[in-house]
């Protein structure tokens, strides 16, 4: 087959089946007379069928030559059967490889998936008609259905189809019995792969066709190259980091989170999926009173982890309240809401934020440098989604580099660490596990949880109105 373009996605054989190339190489190896799978002659009814191989021999060969273990070899063998490179002689409709004495044969290259591009309906009709001629009523139920359907659709061609079927049938009769039986088996196997029985999927089914043909030549006009040039210039210019630094960071992340990964270290008290006991989820609920030690430890890994966990964020808010610097986090949250909010509410939100946080003398005025403040205020005249980005980043960095570390050293956090619980691991007996399985608890619908959260937020917003400093100071002075 000539290679038409150098843009080969391995798909010139068939769309989305670049694996066929390698499959074929393996099948050819398996048929090598000296190093391949050993075949024997088998007696089937009256005829003797040559080159029959057993399932266990196939599995053994794959295990040895591809350096894999038995399970994987069996899975690979099943693939060979599913794609039609090997077909079963007994139970021909089930395309799996049985690692026992079941009999298989190699399919002739004429019927390999790569050769016949599209298994045409015409060919299928001829095949079914031919079988009908040989023995009336030998077709299976699904085949009969297909036959009737094709008869209806191809009525205009039916004479041609019947003629072809008769021709092939007579040509077949001229062959020797053994050859005929073998050819029939091969043809039957081919059609099982390409027109599978009802309720089964064919391996030839690759899903949808791609909209854009990956093997087609892309028009390379001047703007195509211009775009590449512009992009590559930018790319060369961008700053990058040494591999040792960035890979080191990846490895560090893994080590930091190792104990928190339920696949690496069992979670306490137990993994709900394994023991059917959902205490783990109860103990780690978003609004739980006393969090677990693991959870509190996780807050110290990075500011992002702390903010991401609603319980952690709540704890951080308590700390900020004590420090009288809650406006920073409040501003950040409001900016997030603006960024991810619906387009319609944007100008209203922007105005609200301006009044509360940015206007001179605002009740929760945030302390950002003059330049950023200037740009933000100017941007707010024509508010768009990202108008607060600069200010938000500034405030976030401030919290991350300063407030976060003070929080970790604060009595609020230290107390939380002391209070945090460390659940003991479950030790269920077999009987208890069975019991658990029968009594899996359903949980509250997330819609209800969401509604409750929204109510809480509304209440908190109403209660924690902007703190009027003057009044507060006035009341303090009064008391003095």
């Amino acid at each position, binding site marked *: 087959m000539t290679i038409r373009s150098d843009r080969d996605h391995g798909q010139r054989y068939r769309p989305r089946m670049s694996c066929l190339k390698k499959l074929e190489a393996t099948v050819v190896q398996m048929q090598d007379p000296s190093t391949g799978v050993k075949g024997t002659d088998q007696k089937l009814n009256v005829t003797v069928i040559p080159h029959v191989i057993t399932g266990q021999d196939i599995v053994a060969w794959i295990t040895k030559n591809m350096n894999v273990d038995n399970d994987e070899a069996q899975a690979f063998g*099943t693939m060979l059967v599913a794609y039609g490179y090997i077909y079963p002689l007994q139970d021909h409709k089930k395309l799996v490889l049985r690692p026992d004495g079941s009999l298989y044969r190699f399919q002739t290259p004429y019927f390999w998936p790569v050769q016949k591009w599209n298994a045409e309906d015409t060919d299928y009709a001829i095949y079914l008609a031919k079988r009908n001629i040989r023995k009336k009523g030998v077709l299976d139920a699904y085949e009969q259905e297909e036959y009737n359907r094709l008869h209806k659709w191809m009525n205009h061609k039916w004479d041609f189809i019947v003629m072809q079927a008769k021709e092939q049938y007579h040509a077949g009769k001229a062959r020797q019995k053994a050859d005929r039986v073998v050819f029939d088996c091969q043809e039957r196997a081919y059609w099982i792969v390409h027109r599978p029985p009802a309720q089964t999927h064919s391996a030839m089914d690759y899903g949808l066709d791609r*909209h854009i043909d990956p093997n087609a030549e892309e028009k390379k006009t001047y703007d195509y190259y211009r775009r590449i040039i512009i992009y590559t210039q930018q790319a*060369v210019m961008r700053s*990058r980091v040494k591999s040792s630094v*960035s890979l080191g960071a990846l490895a560090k992340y893994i080590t930091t989170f190792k104990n928190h990964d339920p696949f690496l270290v069992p979670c306490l008290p137990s993994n709900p999926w394994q023991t059917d006991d959902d205490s783990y989820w109860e103990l780690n609920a978003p609004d739980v009173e006393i969090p677990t030690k693991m959870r509190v430890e996780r807050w110290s890994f990075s500011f992002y982890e702390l903010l991401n966990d609603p319980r952690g964020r709540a704890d951080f808010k308590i700390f900020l309240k004590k420090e009288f610097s809650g406006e920073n986090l409040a501003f950040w949250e409001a900016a997030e809401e603006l960024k991810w909010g619906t387009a319609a509410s944007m100008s209203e939100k922007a105005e609200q934020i301006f009044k509360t946080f940015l206007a001179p003398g605002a009740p929760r005025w945030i302390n950002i440098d003059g330049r950023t403040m200037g740009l933000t205020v100017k941007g707010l005249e024509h508010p768009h989604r990202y108008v607060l980005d600069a200010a938000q980043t500034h405030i976030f960095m401030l919290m991350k580099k300063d407030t976060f570390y003070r929080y970790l050293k604060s009595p609020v956090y230290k107390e939380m660490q002391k209070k945090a619980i460390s659940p003991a691991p479950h030790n269920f007996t077999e009987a208890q596990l069975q019991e658990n399985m029968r009594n899996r608890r359903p949980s509250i619908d997330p819609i209800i949880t969401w509604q409750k959260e929204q109510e809480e937020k509304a209440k908190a917003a109403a209660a924690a109105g902007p703190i009027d400093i003057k009044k507060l100071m006035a009341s303090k002075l009064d008391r003095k």
Partner: protein
Amino acid sequence: MLMVEMCHVTFASTSEHHQLCRLEYRSRLIIKSTFIDISVIRLCFVKMACQGLAKGETIHTLKAESETLKGKLEEERAKLHDVELHQVAEKIEALGQFVMKTRRTLKGHGNKVLCMDWCRDKRRIVSSSQDGKVIVWDAYTTNKEHAVTMPCTWVMACAYAPSGCAVACGGLDNKCSVYPLSLDKNENLAAKKKSVAMHTNYLSSCSFTNSDMQILTSSGDGTCALWDVESGQLLQSFHGHSADVLSLNLAPSETGNTFVSGGCDKKANVWDMRSGQNVQSFETHESDINSVKYYPSGDAFATGSDDATCRLYDLRADREVAIYSKESIIFGASSVDFSLSGRLLFAGYNDYTINVWDVLKGTRVAILFGHENRVSTVRVSPDGTAFCSGSWDNTLRIWA
């Protein structure tokens, strides 16, 4: 992250802006952050690219220039490449034996399962299939909670909203629709359906951003797009792939401003959501990229492809750092996901198996059997306690 700087002067018109751009482009492209309307910048690039051939330029000179630049880029990347991933991995201890079993099998779809997503409550999932059905399950009890029948077949994309109150799905209808979920089991969810995204070809993947109000979609027409759910307005579109885009994933970083997409043109592109710019691009795969997923820290991402390999790309070092492949694996990887710590990479393949890779050492730690047809989707639960796999054998399995 790449952003483009313009001067601190506000521009009155696009053409003035463009002029300044050209000046910068000729000398050097400076890269810093800006606070003005950024979509103008993209317009600028497009305009620059589409300028007719200047004096003395031909297709061949342009092609030669682009080749030299690509060579220069590779040089720059290689300069900082001082260590391989497996060398860094030597200091890390090896993993023990894994016992991962199917803990739940969810049966109920009538045809191939194409996509699934977890709810943030860590136990509910939404799944979509070829026959047009979208089902919301409580995977823990295996109960079906909601079911929607889409008006099209091949629902290739589905996503659960962060609030847990809605699901989004789409496929051959070229649209992405949002269905608000209801507490009333008898209510017909299709009545309140909201059509959000409109593409010119099939929808391959969709994802909510940090809230229920925005959706990011990718399509067979080669583009990705960001939409406002309430109004259905297109907020930003992302052009750069030269073939179908099959998958996208949002960055888990605190800034949350970028996402990665993978397509049939063998490229994985990183995009800035604000400007619509393609920030980074990687083209080392040999075939279609079926799936992209960020590393939990947001500094790297993994891809699964039809060339039977999964690869890890480091964003800060700007290069491919690992290939996960084996001689005996010759079928394409359809879907990948990381475990919570990023140490394990779960990949579903077209040979009905799921392979689990050690991300650092590059070796395979386990192979999972059980599905009777292609594994089409693999996703780890939000708290990392289990992962779910959906397959063309009409079932979903939860493994832990």
